[in-house]
C-alpha cells in the first residue's frame, strides 16, 4: 500500500525524464541494430560477388601452385599388396562408425607435387584430366568430408590411373609419406591401366600396403574378392562422342571387331571366321593410309574403306572385346555406349563392377579357346535375348560407365554397401533399368503360400448408417468358422440412412462417384493397375447336379 503510493507520487514526475532518456537510448540501440543489419545484409548478398570472385581466383588455381614435396631417397617403401587382405582383416571399420544415414565419409588429400631428390616428378602426366574429374565429383558428393578425423576412407591425390606414366618406387614412397597412410589402411587407389611391358601385371605394380585398389583389368589371380573393386577402363570417347540411343533390334552386321591391338594369332582366327561367314562379320583395323594424328583415333578401316569410330559400333549386334596386352579394354565402354552386345574374350578377367553387376544380362563371355566357335555360339542366342542384352548394355554404360563421376560413385557405393551391408542396394536394384522397374510386378508377398485355415480371416464391414443390413451382414458373417475378427468401420457422416436396402447400388450418383474414384486412383497410380479377367473362382462342385450336403461349400451362389 505504502509502496504503491510512493510509486504513484513519483511516477508522473519521472516519466517525462525517463522518456527522453529512454527515447535516445532506444533510438541509438535501434539504429545500431539497423546498421548492423544493413552491414550484414550487404556482406551477405552484395559481397557474394566478392566471394565468388575469390572463388573465381580459386578457379584459376593452377596445379603448379600445389606445394612441392621432395621425397628423400631413403624414404620408406610400403609393402607389396597383401593378397589375403579382406574387409575384416585389412580395413578399419571403426573409423566409419555407426550413423543413421549409413554413409561412409571420404576424405581427399590436398594436391601436392611429389618430386624426387633431384627434382624429377614422380609421374610424367601429373594430375590427369580424368583423375581431376573423379576427385571433384567425389568432393561434390554426399560421401565427401573435409574433416580428416571423421573420414572413413582416404583418397590420395596422387594420380595412379595409368601405370605407364609412373615411377613406381617413388610413387610408392610418396604414398607412404601421406600423413594418414598408416600401412595403407582405409586408403583407396584408382588405377585403370595396370602393369607394364613385357608381362603386364593385372594389378597396379606400385607397392601399396593394405590400400584398397579400384583397378581396371584385374584377373582372378590378383583380385581380392570382396576387397578390391574392379572398375572399367574409362574411354575418353565417352565424353567426346554423343551416340544417340538406338532401339534394340537386328543390325546391319552380326559381329564387329573394331580393336586395333589384337594379337596376330587372334586376328588370323577372326579372319578365318570372316571367310566362313562373309558379310555378317566386319573386321576393322587401324587405317594405315591416314596420317597418324589425333583424328585417326576416330577412324577404322577395312580394305581401304574408312569407317567412323565409334559410330560404326551401332551398326552391329555383337561387338568383340578381346584381351589386349591388358585384360581391361577401353573398347568395352565404347561398345556398351553404342548399345552393342560385347562378346568378351579375356580369360580370367574380372569384369567391371562384377560384385554387383550381372554381366550375363548384358554380354556374352566366351573363353579365348572357343574363338573359332564364336559365330555358332552367338547364333544360338534367341533374338529377344539379344534385344534385352542390347538394352541392358546401353543402360550399364549410362549408369556406371559414362563418366569418371559415374565410375567413382559406383565404386564408393560398392564399398559403402560392404560397410553397411544391411542397408545395401539389392542386386536387382543394381541391375534393373528403370524401364523394367516400372513395367514389372514384384509382389511383396512372393512366396507361394497357401495359409492354413487356423489363423482365419478378418472381416471389414464398411457401414453408412444402415443398421438393419449391417446386423444382417454381421449375423451371417459370424457364422463362418474361419472368421477370426470382425471389424466395423462406421462411416456415418450425419447423413440420413437411405430408405431402400439396396439403395446404394441403385443410386445413379453412387456409380458415378465410384467411376470418379477409379479415375482418381488410376491417375495417382499413374497407370491402371486393375486387370480384367473373364473367369471367377467357384467351389469345385459349384452348381453341379450333386447333393448339396456332400459339397464343402453348400448353398453357395444362392444369394
Amino acid at each position, binding site marked *: 500500500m505504502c509502496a504503491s503510493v510512493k510509486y504513484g507520487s513519483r511516477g508522473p514526475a519521472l516519466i517525462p525524464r525517463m522518456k527522453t532518456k529512454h527515447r535516445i537510448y*532506444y*533510438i541509438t540501440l*535501434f539504429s545500431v*541494430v*539497423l546498421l*548492423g*543489419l544493413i552491414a*550484414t545484409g550487404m556482406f*551477405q548478398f552484395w559481397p557474394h560477388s566478392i566471394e565468388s570472385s575469390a572463388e573465381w581466383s*580459386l578457379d584459376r588455381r593452377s*596445379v603448379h601452385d600445389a606445394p612441392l614435396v621432395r621425397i628423400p631417397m631413403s624414404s620408406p617403401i610400403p609393402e607389396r599388396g597383401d593378397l589375403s587382405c579382406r574387409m575384416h582383416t585389412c580395413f578399419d*571399420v571403426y573409423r566409419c562408425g*555407426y550413423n543413421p544415414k549409413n554413409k561412409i565419409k571420404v576424405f581427399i588429400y590436398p594436391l601436392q607435387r611429389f618430386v624426387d631428390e633431384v627434382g624429377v616428378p614422380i609421374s610424367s*602426366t601429373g*594430375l*590427369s*584430366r*580424368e583423375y581431376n574429374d573423379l*576427385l571433384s565429383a567425389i568432393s561434390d558428393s554426399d560421401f565427401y568430408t*573435409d574433416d580428416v578425423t571423421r573420414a572413413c576412407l582416404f583418397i590420395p591425390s596422387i594420380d595412379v590411373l*595409368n601405370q605407364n*606414366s609412373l615411377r613406381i618406387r617413388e610413387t610408392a614412397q610418396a604414398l607412404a609419406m601421406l600423413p594418414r597412410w598408416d600401412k595403407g589402411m582405409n586408403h583407396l587407389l584408382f588405377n585403370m*591401366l595396370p602393369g607394364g611391358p*613385357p608381362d603386364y601385371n593385372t594389378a597396379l605394380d606400385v607397392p601399396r600396403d593394405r590400400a584398397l585398389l579400384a583397378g581396371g583389368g584385374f584377373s582372378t*589371380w590378383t583380385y581380392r*574378392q*570382396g576387397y578390391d573393386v574392379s572398375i572399367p577402363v*574409362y574411354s575418353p570417347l565417352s565424353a567426346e562422342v554423343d551416340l544417340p540411343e538406338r532401339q534394340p533390334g537386328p543390325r546391319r552386321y552380326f559381329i564387329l571387331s573394331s580393336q586395333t*591391338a589384337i*594379337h596376330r*594369332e587372334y586376328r588370323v582366327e577372326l579372319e578365318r571366321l570372316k571367310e566362313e561367314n562373309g558379310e555378317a562379320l566386319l573386321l576393322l583395323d587401324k587405317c594405315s593410309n591416314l596420317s597418324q594424328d589425333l583424328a585417326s583415333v576416330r577412324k577404322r578401316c577395312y580394305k581401304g574403306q574408312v569407317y567412323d569410330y565409334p559410330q560404326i559400333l551401332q551398326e552391329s549386334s555383337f561387338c568383340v572385346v578381346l584381351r*589386349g*596386352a591388358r585384360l581391361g579394354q577401353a573398347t568395352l565402354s565404347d561398345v556398351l555406349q553404342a548399345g552393342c552386345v560385347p562378346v568378351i574374350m579375356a580369360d*580370367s578377367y574380372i569384369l567391371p563392377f562384377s560384385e554387383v553387376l*550381372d554381366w550375363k544380362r548384358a554380354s556374352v563371355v566366351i*573363353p*579365348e*579357346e572357343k574363338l573359332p566357335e564364336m559365330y555358332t555360339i552367338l547364333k544360338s*542366342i534367341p533374338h*529377344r535375348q539379344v534385344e*534385352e542384352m542390347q538394352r541392358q548394355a546401353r543402360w550399364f554404360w549410362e549408369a556406371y560407365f559414362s563418366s569418371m563421376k559415374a565410375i567413382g560413385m559406383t565404386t564408393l557405393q560398392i564399398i559403402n554397401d560392404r560397410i553397411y*551391408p*544391411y542397408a545395401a542396394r539389392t*542386386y536387382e536394384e543394381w541391375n534393373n533399368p528403370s524401364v523394367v522397374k516400372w*513395367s*514389372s510386378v514384384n509382389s511383396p508377398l*512372393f*512366396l*507361394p503360400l497357401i495359409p*492354413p485355415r487356423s489363423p482365419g480371416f478378418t472381416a471389414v464391414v464398411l457401414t453408412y448408417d444402415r443398421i438393419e443390413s449391417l446386423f444382417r451382414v454381421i449375423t451371417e458373417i459370424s457364422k463362418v468358422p474361419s472368421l477370426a475378427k470382425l471389424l466395423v468401420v462406421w462411416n456415418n457422416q450425419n447423413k440420413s440412412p437411405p430408405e431402400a436396402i439396396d439403395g446404394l447400388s441403385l443410386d445413379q450418383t453412387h456409380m458415378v462417384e465410384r467411376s470418379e474414384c477409379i479415375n482418381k486412383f488410376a491417375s495417382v497410380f499413374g497407370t491402371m493397375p486393375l486387370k480384367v479377367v*473373364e*473367369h*471367377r*473362382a*467357384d*467351389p*469345385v462342385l*459349384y*452348381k453341379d447336379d450333386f447333393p448339396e450336403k456332400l459339397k*464343402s461349400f453348400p448353398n453357395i451362389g444362392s444369394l
Partner: protein
Amino acid sequence: MQAKKRYLILFSAGVCLILLFYLQGPASRRTPNRGDDPHPHWPHFSDPLRAFIPWDQTETEDYNVRVSPRHKRDDNSGAYKCRMDSCFDFSLCGSNGFKVYVYPQQKGEKISESYRNILSSIESSRFYTSDPGQACLFVLNLDTLDRDQLSPQYVHNLKTKIQNLNLWNNGRNHLIFNLYSGTWPDYTEDLGFEIGQAMLAKASISTENFRPDFDISIPLFSKDHPRTGGDRGYLKYNTIPPFRKYVLVFKGKRYLTGIGSDTRNALHHVHNAEDVVLLTTCKHGKDWQKHKDARCDKDNAEYDRYDYKEMLHNSTFCLVPRGRRLGSFRFLEALQAACVPVMLSNGWELPFSEIIDWHTAAVIGDERLLLQIPSTVRSIHQDRILSLRQQTQFLWEAYFSSVEKIVLTTLEIIQDRVLQHNARSTLMWNRLPGGLFTLPQFSSYLGDFPFFYSVLGVKPQQKFTAVIHAVTPLVSQSQPIFKLLVAVAKSQYCAQIIVLWNCDKPLPAKHRWPATSVPVIVIEGESKVMSSRFLPYDNIRTDAVLSLDEDTVLSTTEVDFAFTVWQIFPERIVGYPARSHFWDSNKERWGYTSKWTNDYSMVLTGAAFYHRYYNYLYTQYLPGSLKSMVDQLSNCEDILMNFLVSAVTKMPPIKVTQKKQYKETMMGQTSRASRWADPDHFAQRQMCMNKFASWFGTMPLVHSQMRLDPVLFKDQVSILRKKYRDIERL
C-alpha cells in the same frame, strides 16, 4: 500511447537483432571453413590437364612381339591356387555333356552315412554315368567329409589311398566334399592330404582359402539331414506387421579358450533377457569345469530356462556366430525356421555364395561390431523383414532342405561354369522356382520361362499349339479325333495342331485329315512311347501347349476359355479333367481317386494347357527310371507331369468349368486307347503315385477347392449377355 511506441521500438529492435543473428549465422559458419581448412573442396584447376591415356599409346607392336597369349594363359597351371581355366579340363565335358562319375565302392571301406547320402544323390541324378570315359567330373569313393583327426569318422591313410586311384591325375576334374577340417586347437582348413587340382566343396570355408569360381562353399549339415525331400519351410503364412516375440535370439556353446571364443564370450553384453536373448553354455566337453570362468554358472542357469525350438520359431532374427569353425548348424536351423540369420562370422565364404545373393535373405554382420547388432537389426524396416523372411524359405526349400538338393546345387554350379555363356543368370538362381528347376539350356532369355513374366513385365504369347496324342488307327470319319481337330482348329488362339502318331499302324495319308484353317503337323513317334507326348518338339514355338488325348471331347468355347485362364496363370496346368490324391492311413501309402470330390490336386493332360517349358523339364529333369516306368506301363504320364509342375510351383493346378464327361465312350471299340476300362489301370496309377512321391522325397501335389468358371456362369441373366455361353449347354 507512449508505452505503445516504446514497445514498438523495443519489438522492432528485437526483430532486427534476431535477423542479425540469423543472417550472421550462416556467414560466420562459413567463414571459419575457409579460414581453417586449406582445401574445403577439391579446387577447380584452370590449366589444361592431360588425358590419362595418351592418344598415341598403342600396344600393338609391342604386344605382337610377345609370345602367343595362349602360352601366357598356360603359365599359371602349375600353381597350387587353381582356377577353372587352369586346373579344369573342359575337353572332357565337350561331347557327352556334363556327366559325373563316382568311383565304385570298395569293400571294407568305411563310409559315413552323410557321405553315402551324397554319393547316392549323385547316382540317382541325371548327371550320373557309370563310365569313367564319358565323365567330366569325378567323385571319390573315399569318405572325405570329416577330416578332424580326433573324430571317430576320420579315415586314415587317405593320402596313399588317393594316390592309388588310377584316374586321380593329380585331382584334375575331381570334386572333394568336406564338412570338417582341422582339429583342436587351431582348426586349420587343411584336409590332411594333397588335393592337387581337385575342386573342394567344403563347409566353413574362409575367403582366404577359397579359390573363387573354383571351390564351392556348402552349408554345414548334420548327419540327420534327410537324403531327399526334407522338411518344408516353417513359415505357413505371412503376418503383418512381421514382428515376432523376440527380436534376436541365439542358443549355443561358449568356448572359454582358443579359436572362435571371442565372439561367443562377448554375447552376454548384448543379451537383455527380453527381446534380445543370447544364451551360451559352458557345459560341453569333458573338462569344462577346469576352464570355467565367473560367468559360467549364471550363464548355464539362464541357458536352461529357454527352449531352443520355441525361441527359433518366435524370433524375427537369429544370430549365427562362428563356432570353432566358421560355419555352424545354427545357420540351416534359422533358415528353415524362417528366422532371418544374422551372420557373425568374419571371413566365412557363405554357402553357394557364387550364385546366392545373401543380402536378400540374411543380415551380414561384423564380429568387430557386435555391440551395434541390436540397433542394426532394429533399424531394418518391416518391408525388408517381410521379404527377407520369405526369401529364407525360398532358399531353404530350393537349395538346402535335403542332402540331394545341396549336392545337386553343387553340381549345377559346376555345370554352369562348364556351360559358360549358357549359364543361369543370378535372377534365375534367386527367384522362384530357383536354379534347379530353371534349366538354362532351354533358353537364355528369361521371357521364355513361365516364371519371369511379371518380373520382366511381359506377357505370354497370345497363341497356343495343340498336341493330340493319337494311338488308334483312323477308321471312320466319325472318330472323336476328327471332331476334336475341327473344334480346336476353330479357336481364335490356335496357331497350329500337332498330331503325334503313336499308333502301330502306318501314318494315314494326308488327305484323310480334315481341312482346317490352321496347319496340322503329323509327327510319327519314333519309339511310340508314352513319354514322347511331352517331348519338346521344335515345331512348338508358342508358349502355350494344349495337350489332348485323341478321344477328348472339347468345344471351341471351352478351349478359348481355358486359354484365357492360362494366360493369367502361365506357370500352372490349366485344364478340365481333375483328379485327387489322399493319404491312405490304413495302407500307409498314397491313394489316387477319380471320384467327384470337393477338391482336386491334379488336372489330367488329356485336356490341359501348360507352358512348353514343362515339356523340356519333363524330358530333361526327370530321371530315366521314372520315364521308363511310364513308358512300360503306358500309363501315369499325366500324374508325373502334375507332380513335376506342382514341385516347381508349389501350387495346385487349375481346373476350369465343370465337365462331367470328357471321354467319348468307346462304342465297342477295343483298342489300346480304352485303357481307362482296364482294371489294372487304376491299380497302376496308385503304384505310380507312390513311386513318384518317393523319388521327389515328398508329396509335391497341393489340393485346391477352387474352380474357375466364366463370369456369369450359370447366373440367372440372359444367355445373350454371356460370353462363353456354349459352356453351359454341355
